[in-house]
């Protein structure tokens, strides 16, 4: 069957409903949010149409700078941790028996879809004094007394890595399954150990994929909004938490919208970079 350009109006029929829904409920809300980011805030949680830059001017405060700096730092740290473990893991997974791959994929998908609330709850339990991991350490004689490990930076970082790891593997999986197996075999034939072959042949061949994955996981981690709240102190709050806080609890929609627009711009720039990195690979 040849694909033809639509000729009659009726040929566009199937497009009406999807295009209408996406425009009305994604494009329009998005535009509304951008408009609100320029609105004037009123007392009592309301706002009036205006065109002011006050909401964006607040970015210049030290407080905002600190939150932004911490968000970026946390997301970078999570992305690096996930990719460092994820690349060798996914490489080995892609070379495992099919049944084993399917079992892991089902487990990873289940954890990936687990609500952020539940992941936060699970880790706060594991890090609690009464039911936590420190009881195991006491039992093993490593610690003298059980203690709570939250709230702390370590707890936030661990839980976010937990949340992002399945995502990392699923982003890496297609590229690693398609990786030419003869690459590593050739290195082995020439006398390289499996570990050496992995680092000197496989990793360099995947350079662009790894870079693109780092960026994707970075954006994913940037979106985490509950774990810093549930497991961290206020100084561990990220931009996503701040947006939620301003929108819901401080009722400052214009400022929340301005921060969201800023987050969109950062994310879009990074997605563009990731797509570019991915295309470099294909061009080669």
């Amino acid at each position, binding site marked *: 069957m040849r*694909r*033809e350009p*639509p000729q009659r109006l009726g040929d566009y029929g199937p*497009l009406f409903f*999807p*295009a209408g*829904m*996406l*425009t009305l*409920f*994604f*494009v*329009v*809300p998005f535009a*509304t*949010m951008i408009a*609100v980011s320029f609105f004037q805030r009123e007392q009592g949680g309301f706002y009036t149409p205006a065109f002011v830059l006050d909401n964006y001017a607040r970015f210049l405060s030290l407080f905002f700078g600190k939150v932004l700096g911490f968000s970026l730092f946390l997301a970078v740290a999570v992305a690096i941790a996930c990719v460092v*473990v994820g690349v060798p*893991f996914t490489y*080995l997974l*892609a070379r*495992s028996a099919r049944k084993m791959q*399917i079992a892991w994929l*089902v*487990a*990873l*998908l289940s*954890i990936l*879809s*687990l*609500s*952020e*609330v*539940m992941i*936060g*709850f*699970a*880790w706060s339990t*594991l890090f*609690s004094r*009464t*039911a936590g*991991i420190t009881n195991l350490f006491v039992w093993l004689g490593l610690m003298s007394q059980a203690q709570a490990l939250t709230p702390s930076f370590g707890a936030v970082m661990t839980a976010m890595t937990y949340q992002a*790891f399945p995502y990392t593997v699923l982003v890496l999986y*297609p590229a690693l399954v*398609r990786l030419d197996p003869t690459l590593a075999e050739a290195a082995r034939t020439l006398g390289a150990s*499996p570990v050496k072959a992995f680092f000197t042949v496989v990793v360099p061949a995947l350079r662009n994929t790894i870079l693109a994955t780092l960026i994707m996981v970075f954006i994913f981690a940037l*979106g985490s909004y*509950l774990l810093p709240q*549930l497991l961290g102190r206020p100084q561990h709050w990220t931009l996503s938490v701040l*947006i*939620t806080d301003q*929108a*819901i609890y401080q009722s400052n*929609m214009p400022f929340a*919208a301005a921060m*969201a627009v800023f*987050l969109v711009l950062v*994310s*879009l720039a990074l997605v563009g970079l990731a797509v570019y990195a991915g295309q470099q690979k294909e061009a080669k």
Partner: protein
Amino acid sequence: MTALRRLLFFVVGLFLALPLIVVAGVSINQRQTLAFPPQGFSLAWYGQIFTNPEWRNALVASLTLAATSALLALLIALPLAWFLWRRLAPWANIFQLLGVAPFTLPPVITALGLLTFWATTGLYGQAWTAAISHGIFFVTLPLVTLSLGFSAIDRSLVEAAATMGADDRTIFRTVVLPLILPYIVSGYAFAFVLSLNEYIVAYMTVGFTMETLPIKIFNALRYGYTPTMASVTVLFLVIAAVIFGLVARFGDLPKLLGALSEDK
């Protein structure tokens, strides 16, 4: 290499399983304590989900929301994916991009966009607005599985049907639909499970008028601990594992997740 692989798989598996093991443990505590290893054995906290009206209402709200929003996502994705496959219209790819965008951007952005939208239109808080919000938010999943499904169809099959006089409608019903049915089912399944677990979009659109299970757990966390949170977490994990297990059993999960099929 095998030893190294076993070690890495074991460490990663332990890391992924540890919090879930502890949650499963505290969910069977006899009394309302946060203790691990569990003290006593009781399945009462699983019963709570269905007998306590608050938890049961949240469960029903979550299941209803997931079922309707996944259906809506599918209804948006199916004609779009079909059109992009059937017609040569490069500009229509913009809608594919729009369908993938909510899932790629940090979720708080979509949530806030929808919050301002529903607040501006005065519909804020209605239960059905959550279904539309989730339908849009998760349209990516059926869109991706269906695009994959369509691209796997051998176009000569369709051509043969057309030569023998079948019109577009007949071709879709008798040739295309049976071939993409597995992708329809898995797209729906993915959207369903993710909607069941989603928190921020649901919270920002209907958080003050309706409680889904994730919202219920978050609200309950503020007032302290109850083992029902743990039993709900285990229940949701089992639901996800069963659904993805079924997708893997009746479909080709590695292929869905982007691997090349083995015969290629």
